[in-house]
């Protein structure tokens, strides 16, 4: 007996039933059998200990986890609703791009700046670092904004891969469409990654391992292949209650934009100082410019889209822009109460007193951007300048501590004197996506527009100019005609005119960085930013990502 004093416990018959390794279910069965064949005399005496042992064994067998208030893939993906819910979460990452990708595409360029206002918006120099292009792989903006954007985009890809894998063993209605949507979404996330970071790992499965980068050209090729394969199964349009899901037009605009930027996207070191022309890249038998024109024509001829009419240009960006016939690829937002799924761009720009809940009074347009706009151009209305009112009440507002306390009336200035010590009213504000009168808290119903028909026209114009075909001037003047009263047509067109016209048309639509890079002007000096190094056209891979995936290599220059 003494020798047996170990961590095995005695079974009902004094036999050791070792509970280790934990094969208790079998043990339990065995104990029950032996228990029943023993004499009844022992029954009463052994009842309590036997019960105890059963309890012990029961515990022993059961280290499996079966959570009930969360779900695992094993008990999910059975119905169409579950698949659609999962699909929604893949779309869901698009909403996050309205922060990181938007900010990195706008503040890095000559479009917007986030000046430090007192102690507000310093955030350890993160915003000025983005504007000055002084980031490094370990700097604040890399650890926060770039790392966050990298994660958001790749999470979208990973979620698409999880659902695509699940769909291989499932049959749900509209399966082919859902697969095509997922492939299109995944391609779009790759498009944004390629745009910001260059070459990244291409992954189409759910395995979680370290992988080396593919080249930027390979990512380009992957997106091209995927979108072309997916578009056949995508619908041309969706009914209103499914508005915002991927369409053939959405796949096409991504392709068209990518072809226009092909000379940039083919290399990690595009020219930082001269124009990167799509004529230098071959897509099959065509130049990338020709491919862009062909895709643009496909969209124009699809019959699905039309430009907003004269005087209605801003309707593309308002709260009810779901009905816009011009918008092609959008991020859906809604002011639905309790949904918390609205656009919050106005929070970044409006003064504290202009909206409820209190906005953050941060982002401002650069003076040169504001000044570039013609006073007669309807498109200048996207800026708030001069005396300001509250968007909810219409009342005039004052700088803090507020009108009631004797504060100065709020009037946004064009110029920012010192970006490190700006006042509350300094800088004009971009409210292209104007405040939603029916917003719930900070949630506005405006869909954020990534691509619309004007893009397709401008892509076509720029590609035609490069290719020396068509009527790019005519396209530009068509677009201008609807925003000028009376018309102010252009008389000639060149690359700079195109770039300038894109500024007027697309300011505040997260395109400026990409445009400047293509035009070889991204490293040029502008307000509060000196000339920067050529390698700045690519973002650094944030250090945490290099740490997590040792197979990655840092982008050149960093």
């Amino acid at each position: 007996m003494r020798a047996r004093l170990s961590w095995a416990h005695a079974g009902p018959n004094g036999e050791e039933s070792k509970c280790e390794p934990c094969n208790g279910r079998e043990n339990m069965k065995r104990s029950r059998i032996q228990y029943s064949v023993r004499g009844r005399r022992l029954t009463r005496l052994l009842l309590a200990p036997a019960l105890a042992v059963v309890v012990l064994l029961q515990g022993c067998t059961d280290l499996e986890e079966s959570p009930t208030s969360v779900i695992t893939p094993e008990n999910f993906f059975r119905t169409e609703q579950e698949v659609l819910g999962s699909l929604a979460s893949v779309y869901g990452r698009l909403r996050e791009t309205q922060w990181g990708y938007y900010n990195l595409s706008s503040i890095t360029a000559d479009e917007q700046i986030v000046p430090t206002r007192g102690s507000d918006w310093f955030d350890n120099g993160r915003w000025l670092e983005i504007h000055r292009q002084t980031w490094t792989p370990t700097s604040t903006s890399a650890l926060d904004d770039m790392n966050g954007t990298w994660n958001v985009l790749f999470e979208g890809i990973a979620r698409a891969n999880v659902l695509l894998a699940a769909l291989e063993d499932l049959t749900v209605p509209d399966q082919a469409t859902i697969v095509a949507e997922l492939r299109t979404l995944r391609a779009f996330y790759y498009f944004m990654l390629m745009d910001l970071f260059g070459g990244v790992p291409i992954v189409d499965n759910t395995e979680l391992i370290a992988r080396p980068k593919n080249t930027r050209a390979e990512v380009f090729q992957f997106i091209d292949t995927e979108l072309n394969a997916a578009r056949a199964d995508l619908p041309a349009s969706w009914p209103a209650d499914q508005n915002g899901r991927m369409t053939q037009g959405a796949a096409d605009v991504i392709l068209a934009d990518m072809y226009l930027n092909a000379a940039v996207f083919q290399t990690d070191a595009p020219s930082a100082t001269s124009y990167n022309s799509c004529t230098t890249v071959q897509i099959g038998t065509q130049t990338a410019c020709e491919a862009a024109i062909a895709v643009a024509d496909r969209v124009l001829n699809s019959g699905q889209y039309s430009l907003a009419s004269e005087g209605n240009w801003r309707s593309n960006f308002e709260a009810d822009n779901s009905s816009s016939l011009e918008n092609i690829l959008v991020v859906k937002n809604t002011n639905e109460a309790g949904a918390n799924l609205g656009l919050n761009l106005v929070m970044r720009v409006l003064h504290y007193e202009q909206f409820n809940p209190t906005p953050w009074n941060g982002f401002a347009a650069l003076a040169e951007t504001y000044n570039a706009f013609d006073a007669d151009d309807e498109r200048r209305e996207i800026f708030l300048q001069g005396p300001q009112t509250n968007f909810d009440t219409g009342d005039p507002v004052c700088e803090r501590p507020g009108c009631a306390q004797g504060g100065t009336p709020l009037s946004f200035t064009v110029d920012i004197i010192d970006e490190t010590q700006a006042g509350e009213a300094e800088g004009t504000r971009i409210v292209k996506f104007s405040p939603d009168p029916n917003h719930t808290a900070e949630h506005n119903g405006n869909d954020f527009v990534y691509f619309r028909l004007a893009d397709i026209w401008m892509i076509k114009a720029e590609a035609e100019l490069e290719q020396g075909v068509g009527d790019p001037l005519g396209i530009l003047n068509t677009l201008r005609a609807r925003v000028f009263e009376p018309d102010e047509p252009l008389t000639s067109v060149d690359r700079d005119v195109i770039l300038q016209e894109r500024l007027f048309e697309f300011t505040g639509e997260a395109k400026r960085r990409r445009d400047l890079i293509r035009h070889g002007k991204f490293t040029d000096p502008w307000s509060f930013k000196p000339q920067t190094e050529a390698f700045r056209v690519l973002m650094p891979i944030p250090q945490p990502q290099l740490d997590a995936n040792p197979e990655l290599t840092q982008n050149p220059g960093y």
Partner: protein
Amino acid sequence: MTARKVILAILAGLFFTGPLAAQFQTGSITGRVVDGMTSEVIAGAVVTLEGTRRGTTTGPDGTFTLTDVPAGPQFVTARLIGYGPQTQEVTVTAGISTTVEFALPRQAVVMDELVVTGYGAQRRAAIAGSIGTVNADEANVGVTTNANDLIQGRIAGVQITQNHGEPGAGQQIRIRGGTSISASNDPLYVIDGIPVPNVATESSAFNAFGDPGLSRSPLNTLNPGDIESITVLKDAAAAAIYGTQGANGVILIETKQGQAGSTTFEYDGYVSVSQPSRKLDLLTGDEYRQYVQEQVTAGNLLPASLAALGTANTDWEGEITRSAITHNHNVAFSGGTASTQYRASLNYMSQEGVALSSGLERFQGRLNATHFAWDDRLQLRLNMSASHVDNDYLPFEDTGGFDGGLFQNMVQFNPTQPVMVTDPTTSVVSFYELGGGALAVRNPVAMAEQIADVSGTTRVLGNVRAQVDIVPNVLSGQLIVGVDRSESTRREYYPANSPVGAEWNGLARQVSRELTTTTLQGLITYSERFGDEHEFSAVGGYEFADFNEDSFGAETRDFLTDAFSFDNLSAGAAAQVPFSNVVDSRLIGFFSRVSYGYRDRYFINAVVRRDGSSKFGADNKWSTFPAVAVSWRMSEENFMIDGPFSELKLRAGWGKQGNEAVPAYASLLLLAPGGDNYPFGDTKTVGVAPTRASNPALKWEETTQWNVGIDYGLSDNRISGSFDYYIKNTTDLLLSVAVPQPAVQAERLENIGKVRNKGLEATLDALVANRANMTWRAGIVFAAEKNEVVDLGGRTFITSGFVSGQGQSGQTSQRILPGFALGTFYGLEYVGISSSGQQEFNDYDVDGNLVGTTTSPGADDFVVIGDANPDFTLGFRSQMTWGSFDASFIARWEQGRDVFNNTALVHASKSNVKQGKNILRSGLDETDESIDEPAIYSSRWIEDGSFLRLQNITIGYTFELPGLLTGGRNNTARVYAAADNLLMLTGYTGYDPEAHSDAGLGSRGIDYLSYPRARSFTAGLRLSF
């Protein structure tokens, strides 16, 4: 004898022992216990009959009586804390009373006492691991809210930092430093043999002000007055028997048990008054007005700023804080017969916080009972406590958001404005407010008074054990069933007519949380002496524990009236989606400890535990934790007998411990609805998104610890103590790290990296003076520890410790860096203010060379700027008895620790005045700084947080109760006066250098608007008769 026969024998015994008892012939033993030094009688000494559970305590005249003692030779032992025990052989004759007298020697540390060591007890002399003990009665001085308060400063290597000064605030407890980065660093608590989970019993607050505050200590439900002793297991040799739960050390708490003999009754109560011990130095109304005037004159502020000035002089800090009353009452009675002993106690405690509208109230009852049956071979014991704790929380935060909690508003509210205003037309008196909106500064007094945030927690902790002596004094078996159940509801209401609640037009919320832990333990204990030389003991056991956590919450907004507060959720027009959550996990362990002692000189102790936890990956649910320790009592050797040492023991041990403190389901890929919704059309579609990436290889952190130590005693153990040196290597750290993308979540828990702790601990206990009418005991505990992150699995660093405040989004104050300690501050090196009024920092180039100074720092300029860990900690304590008087104090010193004064970073910045906010006076000291300059995190805000704190000082007077109750009873009374936190010497400028306001990964030493710590004066009375 086969095992089967043994069991049959036991079971047979169970049914036939009752009548047997009557067959024995019995006599009785009477006697007296006196002080070996003075020959004065000792009251309250415990006298036990060896080999049985029977015993009694001596009365005021030092006498005792044991009746129904079986005839024949018996061993009787008398013991009392502070004295060496004595055992005498008494030959009992049937029907006769035999007399015996004990003269106990005074000792600082008694080597023969039994020390609870986890699944059993061992003689102190035989212990080979590193442990520390606290005599709870001695430590229970001043205002002690929970068990941790009794440990602070009394055990080397145990560092306890209260998060802040709120009553019942949570604590950061580190035994031999933290070993884990992302898993818990809290020790395992074992109360009366049952491991008790140390998780928050209340749900966290509504997230109205940034992150909710850190939770209160779950140990608040245990009455310190019921605690008999606390043992801390520090090294692997001692703690490995707790396997996966042992890596952070183990705190064993034993509650008081009754003794046979006449019924004793005790009352112990105190009343104390507390006030904030320090104040933040804020500008007064006059100073603020003057500064605004100057700045307007200088053209830095608009003239409109003058219009915003009021005429009042409000000390907001004074308005928020108060003199708070705490009173505590314990009533206990105990007694019993030879076969049944009990102790029952009741506790009521009401503790007001030194800030308005905060406090803690506790009701607790406990019943501990023991019954012996079957000729003392069966012991049945019940330990049961039920408590109810009412918490009144403040709407304050530890980490900031924009809006700010109570203390943030206290600091920044315009001091020229009054607390209350009277409407000139309606004569209605109301709180003065600056205006609505999320960013507005709010009247902090109004916040405290208007916002309701309370919780009530009921916790029942009970265990029942049956112990059978299979072979008396040799082999026993024990079965323990324990249940720990807590139910709490947190209730909050933000009134519509308060500026905070106006945002939602009133918000009411109730969240209930139920925690249930069931534990089953089976133990077999064997111990036997073979001859005079061999001593052998073994414990084998099994433990099963199931942890269940269940929560449910509902919230509604938009109230027509504030009259309902949180009591009628249906009165809110806008119901939020209710939420619920269930988490379940299980732990199974098989363990054994074998001890062998040879000639009371050489000891070896071996432990092995095999643990399985449900929380880990499918491939790694089970693991084994071994430990072995040896000790050599040199003082027992012939060559040492004449030396100076009355005790000299060398110890060495090695072992493995685990840390499984990660959330349940951490290894699974989980999907959750609502994780990422998306509107199709303009209607929300609930998105089902993965919330966690799977990791089937997930397992526990493993700590391997080496310990060498010396226990020494001089002059018959009047001076005694120990030295310990340890190296603790923790590998397979449970770390939430970035994973290679694409991944469904950016991070997942992995086992990577390595942390090393090395340390030296020393203790000294001395009976400094030992005269007839005076004794003086003193003790010192010293610890120096070095923590180092050795490896992060290839990661360059992990950021931690978010900086709070406007303009600090995403900014972190600390980095976890290989080669540095956890709690390393990382930022810019502050040089001074430049001629243009900007903060200047050291400028480093890419290679790390200092190239000058800069006002616009870049990534290269960030360096290590501080370490939150102390170089050493020292605790002093002294206890003196002089006739009827007694006096004691305990002081703590921590040297060489840095604190990040986040409060100063945010609120010493002059630019706050531009927004109409008050600032700390230190903001004006930097006279050259521009009013436009933002606060930049740098070494400027890292302060030396070394301190010397007089934690408690107590003076007492003990006297006989004159003729109140007679009849051989022990009628004594003690009155005492105590002061807690009377004095603190520190260079730190914030409220208190001991603060912990960030729950981030491995972060330490961050102080942001912590609740001020109290200084308390207590008057107490203890009666026993």
